[in-house]
C-alpha cells in the first residue's frame, strides 16, 4: 500500500524539468495525485500533440512550458510563467538529462559539452533561477521548499565507457551538497537533496540499450534488461513510479530534517 493520493502536497506548487516522459513524468503524476499543482518543462513545442495529449490526461492542475534547460532565457521564461500562474514554488525537480557512452578516445568535445550543458548547467540554472522565489515560498510550508536534483548511481560509482555521464552526475551530487549547506547556513527555508536512481525502465534507458544493441553488445534490448536485472540484487529494474515515491518523500514535510543527503534507489546495485 502506498501513500498515493494522501493529498499531503495540497497547496504546493512543483516544477519538474524534462517532465514529458520517464522519471520526470512519474514525478509529475505523483505530485498531482498528492494534491500539488505542477508545471512541467521539456523540449516539445507547446502546441505539439504529445504536450496536448499529456496535459489533457493530467488535467487542470498541470501546465507546460517549453524550455531547454541549457538556456538562461528559457529559464527566465519559466520563472515568468510560474510567477504569473502561481506566484510561488515549493518543489523543484531538476530531472532533465541525457546520457553519453563510448570510449574516452572517441568522445568528442562537442558531445562532452552537450552532456555537461544539459546535466550540469541545466541543474545550476534551474536552482539559480528559482532560489529567490523558493526562499519566499518555502517560508509558508512546514519543512520548507525542496530542491530535488536527479543524479544517478553513476554519480557515485564509475563505469567503463561512461566517463561523460559519470562526470556530469558526480557534479550534480556535490553541487547539491554545497547548495544545501549554503541555504542552511543562511537560514533560507530551502532543502536540497540528490536522487540516485539505478536502472529505471524509461525511454532514456531503452534508447541507451538500443544503442548498445546497434554496437553489437547484445542481440536485443531485452537481453540487456535481463542481464542488468540479474546483476541487481533485487532482481529487476525499477519502475519510474519507484523514483517518484522518493521524490514525493523529499517534497513532503516528512523529510523536514533531510538536506544535503543522497537517496539511492538502485535495488542494491551499489551495495555489492
Amino acid at each position, binding site marked *: 500500500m502506498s501513500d498515493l493520493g494522501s493529498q499531503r502536497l495540497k497547496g504546493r506548487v512543483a516544477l519538474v524539468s524534462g517532465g514529458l516522459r520517464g522519471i520526470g513524468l512519474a514525478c509529475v503524476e505523483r505530485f498531482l495525485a498528492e494534491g500539488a499543482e505542477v508545471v512541467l518543462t521539456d523540449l516539445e513545442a507547446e502546441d505539439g500533440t504529445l504536450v496536448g495529449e499529456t496535459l489533457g490526461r493530467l488535467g487542470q492542475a498541470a501546465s507546460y512550458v517549453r524550455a531547454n534547460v541549457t538556456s538562461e532565457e528559457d529559464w527566465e521564461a519559466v520563472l515568468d510563467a510560474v510567477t504569473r500562474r502561481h506566484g510561488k514554488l515549493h518543489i523543484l525537480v531538476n530531472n532533465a538529462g541525457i546520457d553519453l557512452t563510448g570510449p574516452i578516445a572517441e568522445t568528442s568535445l562537442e558531445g562532452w559539452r552537450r552532456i555537461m550543458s544539459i546535466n550540469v548547467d541545466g541543474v545550476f540554472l534551474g536552482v539559480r533561477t528559482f532560489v529567490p522565489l523558493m526562499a519566499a515560498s518555502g517560508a509558508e510550508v512546514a519543512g520548507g521548499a525542496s530542491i530535488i536534483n536527479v543524479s544517478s548511481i553513476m554519480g557515485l560509482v564509475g563505469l567503463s565507457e561512461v566517463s561523460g555521464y559519470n562526470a556530469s552526475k558526480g557534479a550534480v551530487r556535490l553541487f547539491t551538497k554545497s547548495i544545501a549547506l549554503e541555504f542552511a*547556513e543562511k537560514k533560507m527555508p530551502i532543502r536540497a537533496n540528490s536522487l540516485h536512481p539505478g536502472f529505471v525502465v524509461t525511454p532514456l534507458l531503452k534508447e541507451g540499450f538500443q544503442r548498445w544493441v546497434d554496437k553489437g553488445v547484445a542481440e536485443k534490448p531485452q537481453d540487456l534488461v535481463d542481464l542488468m536485472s540479474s546483476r541487481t540484487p533485487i532482481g529487476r529494474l525499477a519502475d519510474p513510479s519507484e523514483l517518484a515515491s522518493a521524490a514525493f518523500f523529499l517534497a513532503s514535510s516528512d523529510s523536514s530534517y533531510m538536506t544535503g543527503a543522497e537517496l539511492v534507489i538502485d535495488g542494491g546495485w551499489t551495495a555489492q
Partner: protein
Amino acid sequence: MKRLEGKVALVTGGTSGIGAGAVHRLRAEGAKVVFTGSNRSAADEVCAATGAEFVSHNVRDGAAWDALSERIERDHGRLDFAFANAGTEHGDGSVEDITLDGWENVIGVNQTGAMLTVQHAMRLMSRNPGGAAGSILVNSSMNAHRAMGNFVAYSVSKAAVVALVKSAAVHAGNRKYRIRVNAILPGVVETALIRNLIDTSGDPTATRAAYEGLSPLGRMARVEEIAGLVAWFASDESQFVSGSEYVIDGASTAGMMGV
C-alpha cells in the same frame, strides 16, 4: 486505507527516543507493532498511547531472539518490517581509555544486537505467506561517517552496521527474496536521553548550543522527523531501495561549514 494497514512491524528499543517515535508513527499509519526493551513502565505508556504490543527482550540475547521470533510467528503469522533501533553508548570511551567490558557492551548491543535483529527478521520474512518479502531497517548514525574521538565503540559499531545491511541486502538478492535491507544515519535527535545529557552537563546552554551547532540548520532533529523516514521504509514506497544508507542529519555531514 492507511499506508501500513495489514503490515506487522517489529521495533527494538521502542520504549523511548527514536524507537518510541517510530512505534507511534507506525501505529498511526495502521501497522500492528511489536516493540522490545527493558523499561516496563515506559513501555506501558507507549502501549497505552498507541495500542502496540511490548515484549521485554534483550537484543544481544540469542535465546531470547528465538522466543521472540516464535511469538511473532504464532501471534501474527508474518513480519513485514523490522527496525533494528536499540543502541547504547554505555561504557564507551576513547580508544585509549575504554575498558574491555565497556567495548563489549556497546559492540554487543549496537553491532551484535543489530545483526541478530536482521538475522531473525530475515528468517521470519523468508517464511511470510505469499513469499519471502519485507523491509529491514537498521538505525546507524552520522557517526558511521564522522567518528567521535571520545566514543570509539559507538563509532565503530555504527560504521559496522552499514556493512551489515549491505551484506544482508546482497544475500537477500542471492536468495531471490523480496526482502530489502537498509540503514538510516540520523544526526543529533532531541530525545529525552540527549535532553538529560544537556541538563546534567554543568553548562546546559553551552551544551545545547554545541549540539545544535552540529547541523548547519542550527537545530537538532525532532523524533517525529526521523519517524517519517522510518515509516517510508516500512511502506511499499521504498520497494526498490536496498543496501542503501540514508543520511538524515540536516546537512551535518554534507561537507564543511563555511568560514
